[in-house]
């Protein structure tokens, strides 16, 4: 089975990139691709717990993300440095994640057939 590492770097609501990156991950998973996701840089902000879109009318990124485990997207990795730079800890996140370190990127990418950043 082919594998994809989707690297998510964008904050959830300022642009539609976050949602579109998740859409690619879900589509790949539906085509039997082994999908992993890495949230880094502003992308870690997508995982913040308690997003409320009732008054903005946008699609709730938190609830879209909650479907990742159902689609067998795993592992869901988070760059710990990006998290702490934004004053967040794993307790602030809406999904169980695995922490990784910035220096791990090259070895991580080498494990996957395809790597995409959005």
């Amino acid at each position, binding site marked *: 089975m082919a594998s994809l590492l989707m*690297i998510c*770097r964008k904050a959830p609501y300022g642009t539609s990139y976050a949602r579109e990156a998740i859409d690619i991950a879900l589509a790949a998973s539906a085509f039997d691709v082994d999908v992993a996701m890495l949230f*880094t*840089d*502003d992308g870690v902000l997508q995982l913040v717990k308690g997003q409320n879109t009732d008054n903005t009318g946008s699609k709730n990124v938190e609830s879209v993300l909650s479907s990742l485990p159902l689609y067998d997207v795993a592992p869901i990795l988070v*760059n710990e*440095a990006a998290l702490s730079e934004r004053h967040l800890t794993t307790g602030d996140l809406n999904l169980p994640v695995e922490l990784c370190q*910035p*220096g791990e*990127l*090259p070895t991580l*990418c*080498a494990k996957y057939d*395809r*790597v995409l*950043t959005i």
Partner: protein
Amino acid sequence: MTDAILHLVQQSPTASSALRDCLAVAGPADSIVLMHDGVYAAMEKPSAHTCYALQSDLEERGLQGRTDPAVTLIDYSGLVELCDQHRHNLSWF
């Protein structure tokens, strides 16, 4: 072909965190390509990595002759060649 990564930095180093975020995770054997507004980072080679810049984007912005000589200038066929040589390329924007 190499497992080292080719990083395509496509945003200005001062307006965007793209270059900084890229350099924070790039491995020592990785290479950096500066393109679009990313070429503004070619004025001073941004890191110890092998670094390339897209000449047409530099020229468009009036940077010809002003870039760090340690940054190698390439055209689009040079960029294709670099992509050929690297198993993975990552875009930063």
